[in-house]
């Protein structure tokens, strides 16, 4: 199948509503070009699921958006800031408005759940008192259904619990944009569904915009307002779950079977 990047389609009237706008993004690792001209826009309050086979650059894409990977070519606008050209200090200001849920949850092993949530909060919100921070931690843990785990160490938590705590740690900073890197990978069907419902609840409660990288079609069906499919580093299909499920393209349809 000849892979071609979809043309960028931006309605000028809707520009103000775009929270993320990616134009012609290229990223290479050595000689291997992972992203070959990605064009993508995410609107305020929209949940976008990115699908694609392993190694197509899905995780690299969201790491470029949050500035964990530098880009070789193109432009990434996040909340009207070109993150590929701003200083480290300005980048940190944008990062505070974004949340990132890692595939492994990436909880700090040497800290309790309370400290895991308090650590970023203390640094980003210096005006908050210890009591206010404690209240926020309790509220956030309540939202993810893990109030009892507040004094536990990450090693005492199951995979699903770690994901929830990772999500709580991210949400405590009240991000406008959420990036999820395979949030349901390695979890059983029931826990995967619970995490997917939590993602949806977060979006509805906080009105966040989200990019969700996943292979889990149940998660995609539940959470996606729009699905983007990557192949060999380019966007090859884009649309709603239903539209892509009934696509004329057999390869696109194969994701939904």
């Amino acid at each position, binding site marked *: 199948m000849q892979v071609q990047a979809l043309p960028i389609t931006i309605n000028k009237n809707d520009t103000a509503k775009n929270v993320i706008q990616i134009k012609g993004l290229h990223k290479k690792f050595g000689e291997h070009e992972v992203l070959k001209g990605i064009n993508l826009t995410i609107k305020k309050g929209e949940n976008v699921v990115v699908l694609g086979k392993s190694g197509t650059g899905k995780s690299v894409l969201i790491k470029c958006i949050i500035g*964990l990977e530098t880009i070789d070519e193109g432009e990434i606008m996040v909340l009207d800031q070109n993150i590929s050209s701003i200083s480290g200090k300005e980048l940190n200001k944008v*990062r*505070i408005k974004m949340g990132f849920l890692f595939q492994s949850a990436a909880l700090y092993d040497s800290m309790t759940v309370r400290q895991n949530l308090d650590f970023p909060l203390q640094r980003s919100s210096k005006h908050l008192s210890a009591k206010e921070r404690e209240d926020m931690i309790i509220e956030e843990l309540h939202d993810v259904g893990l109030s009892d785990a507040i004094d536990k160490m990450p090693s005492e938590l199951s995979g699903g619990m770690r994901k929830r705590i990772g999500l709580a740690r991210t949400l405590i900073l009240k991000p406008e944009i959420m990036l999820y890197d395979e949030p349901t990978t390695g979890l059983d069907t029931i826990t995967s569904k619970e995490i997917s419902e939590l993602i949806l609840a977060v979006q509805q409660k906080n009105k966040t915009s989200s990019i969700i990288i996943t292979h889990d079609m149940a998660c995609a069906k539940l959470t996606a307002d729009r699905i983007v499919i990557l192949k060999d580093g380019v966007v090859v299909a884009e649309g709603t779950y239903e539209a892509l499920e009934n696509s004329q393209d057999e390869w696109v349809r194969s994701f939904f079977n």
Partner: protein
Amino acid sequence: MKSAIQELSLPDKETRAIRMPDYLKEAFTNVGQITQFAFRFFKELFLPRYEFKAFTEQCYKIGYKSLPLVAITGFIMGLVLTLQARPTLAEFGAESWLPGMVALSLIREIAPVVTALICAGKIGSGIGAELGSMKVTEQIDAMEVSAINPFKYLVVTRILATTLMIPLLVLFADGVGLFGAFVGVNIHNHVTLIRFFHQAISKIDFIDIIPATIKSVFFGFFIGLIGCYNGYTAENGTESVGKAANTAVVMASLTIFIIDMLAVQIIDLL
């Protein structure tokens, strides 16, 4: 026939060029990258925000938690050195020189080097494994996306703590080593603690302590730097955690001997 002659003739300019072996290339690359890492440390050291809490936690972990190990090795160093040196000195009727000789050997050379090697094993490998594991499990990335500077929080605090704590551990090892020497002397003779320390300290000048302490500062700096470098730059995969810890110990131990050799030459010139 012609082709055989051609084969025997001198190779062209390109093939005559001496190729640097890969291991040498890798060694130079490592030195370059560690130097860059050290420059970044000095740059970040003076920029706010200052991580005092994390620094004191590291001082506690690196300094206080290493005291039992350093005490045991220091005591054994002093005791063994005394027991080994006593027969030779006794042959020349110079047993009274034993406290002074042991004190000089301990303070100038043995305590700094042995303590540094023990710390390279305990602290260097610990830092390498801890940071390597954090890197592999994306904890360092998690800090970065939360707008926390992981280099400052994890690396600067650890290098500063090793630089400060290892000279203090060396001074502690000096003291415990001298006590070990006192026990060693008392196995064959009876000498009071005050008399032993009087004899030992009378042979030590200020110039004996200062270079050894300065040397220990460098040992501490490089143990921290090499441990942090190997952990912080670990590649993805659990195997790299073990590799980071192992490389940290090997590189730090080798660096300790190189610094010691240079220090001896410099002190001789002074």
